[in-house]
């Protein structure tokens, strides 16, 4: 997996906050501080901005002048986007876009379903070998995806599901499980045991506790994980490349982009437009759900 989707919950509690009002903290209020913040923000945004500008410039200019010359001599063209969206010899990126959604949505939902169950068992049911098993699951985060490619593909061949979406869904679900279980477990542990105890005294079984007590409290945590998983799956190339293996039938947009420039050299005009097309969805998803993401982090591991 990538760095973006490894553990994002603390395993240790931080000093307990006293609710929403706990917002006082020291602040560097000098103008220098503001300046520093602006400098960092500009440095972080500039590279992406450069790509955005480049994607709108004609091929020849991208190759001979820097994107900043655009401001002296602005020439805008949508040709790059047109070329990318209707790549010759194929039906364009449209069907790949659809594939990306079809791949991503189950790959987010399935591991969450399974991880919720497992995390509940680890967090609230006593059984022999619990901690050993939990540590083992956590430790599986270290297995590099690359080592699983051949063994998994071999199994898929035996199961005769190669070239369908199932291979990709299953693979992404498997790779997401260690982190999802670990994360959701930590969130669940943070729920005051008293709540569960009260429900149990009222005669609620595991099922009722799971649905009525835990799930509502877990929504932000699930959302936080879902965002990470969404970004990871959407941006993934390696898994799709290995398991999709069937042309445009099931391949996601990342695979299409990787082959976009064809054998025609560097084709930066296509790459910049293509890269921009591919990052729009994750960026929009992230910006829309950012609120839940931060709340999920606050609600879960980061308090004690």
């Amino acid at each position, binding site marked *: 997996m*990538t760095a973006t989707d490894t553990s994002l919950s603390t395993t240790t509690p931080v000093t307990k906050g006293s609710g929403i009002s706990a917002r006082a*903290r020291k602040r560097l209020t000098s103008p220098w501080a503001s300046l520093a913040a602006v400098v960092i923000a500009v440095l972080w945004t500039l590279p992406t901005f450069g790509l955005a500008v480049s994607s709108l410039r004609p091929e020849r200019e991208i190759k001979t002048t820097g*994107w900043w010359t655009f401001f002296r001599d602005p020439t805008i063209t949508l040709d790059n986007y047109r070329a990318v969206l209707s790549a010759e010899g194929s039906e364009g990126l449209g069907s790949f876009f659809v594939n990306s959604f079809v791949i991503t949505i189950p790959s987010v939902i399935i591991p969450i*379903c399974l991880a919720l169950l497992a995390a509940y068992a680890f967090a609230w049911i006593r059984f022999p070998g619990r901690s050993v098993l939990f540590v083992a699951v956590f430790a*599986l985060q270290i297995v*590099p995806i690359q080592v699983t490619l051949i063994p998994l593909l071999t199994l898929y061949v035996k199961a005769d599901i190669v070239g369908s979406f199932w291979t990709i869904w299953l693979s992404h679900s498997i790779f997401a499980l260690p982190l999802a279980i670990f994360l959701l477990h930590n969130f669940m542990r943070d729920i005051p045991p008293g709540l569960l105890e009260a429900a149990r005294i009222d005669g609620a079984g595991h099922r009722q506790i799971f649905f009525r007590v835990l799930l509502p409290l877990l929504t932000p945590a699930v959302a936080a994980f879902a965002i990470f998983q969404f970004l990871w799956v959407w941006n993934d190339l390696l898994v799709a490349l290995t398991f999709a293996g069937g042309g445009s039938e099931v391949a996601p947009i990342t695979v299409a982009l990787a082959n976009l420039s064809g054998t025609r050299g560097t084709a930066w005009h296509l790459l910049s437009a293509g890269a921009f097309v591919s990052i729009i969805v994750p960026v929009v998803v992230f910006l829309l759900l950012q609120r839940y993401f931060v709340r999920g982090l606050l609600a879960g591991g*980061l308090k004690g």
Partner: protein
Amino acid sequence: MTTAGKFLEMGTAILLFVAVVGVILFVAGRLGGRRGDRWVAFLYLTPAVLMLAVGLIYPAARTIYQSFFDAAGDTFIGLDNYQTIFTSDEQLTVLRNTVLWVVVTPFAATGIGLLYAILVDRARLEAFAKALIFLPMAISFVGASIIWKFVYEYRPDQVGVKQIGLLNQVLVWIGGTPQQWLVDPPWNTLFLILVMIWIQAGFAMTVLSAAIKAIPDDVVEAARLDGVTPVGMFRYVTLPSIRPAVVVVLTTIGIGTLKVFDIVRTMTGGQFDTSVVANEFYSQSFRSGNEGLGAALAVLLFVLVIPIVVYNIRQLRAAEAR
């Protein structure tokens, strides 16, 4: 397959898995009593553990086994592959680079993320300011590589030739000569690391900002009444309070950095002495046809992550104990 067909299949898959969960919940719900708990746990864990065993444990075990075999995978050669890793110049460079990545990336990304989190905390437009820094996280590594090409690209210092890379243009503006950033070791590795820092700082910032906001008001107020300076406040109040969060961010980015492979592969292809373990593993296994050495590199990757995992587990235990 039509678009509708694809979505239909997707719906089926989701329903199927939801149904599995439903059946498990239903069956588990019929089990009662103290002994029933074990069965409930068993049922709840089965699907996840089954998938992990097939998808991760088995391949990992196979890799460890393979690492004791030669390139073709049929002669047992003991620890020779590991010896190669620790003796050949090329592999030592790979190890050195990996260490550099793992040491620099987490600390730099966390430091910048923390600084920024403090700077924009409760500032006007805080959400917007944070989104700017977080944005790179939503971008794929391949996309990031293209973005950074426009920063590092080199054009010769000649009349009529203009720079395309931003960094070289800045250098020219201030009177320097353009450099080939990605060619000379060890600096080229640092320039690659910069890309990773760029991606990860947003993650550090988000988590740490959340931690800072969780510091209780009374603690801050008390310190302020004592006349603690802003720097002192950071040193004695903020840092201790968010220390656990900092540790988590560091280890998280650390694990991610160990596995970094796309950035190196797309930007330099591991050339110019920039290769790292994860990339070397890929090229040995899938390009050079040296599966034994590739497997040994993967095992080394596990081993390198173990200290981080152990540390996390001890933190976990400590938290459980309280």
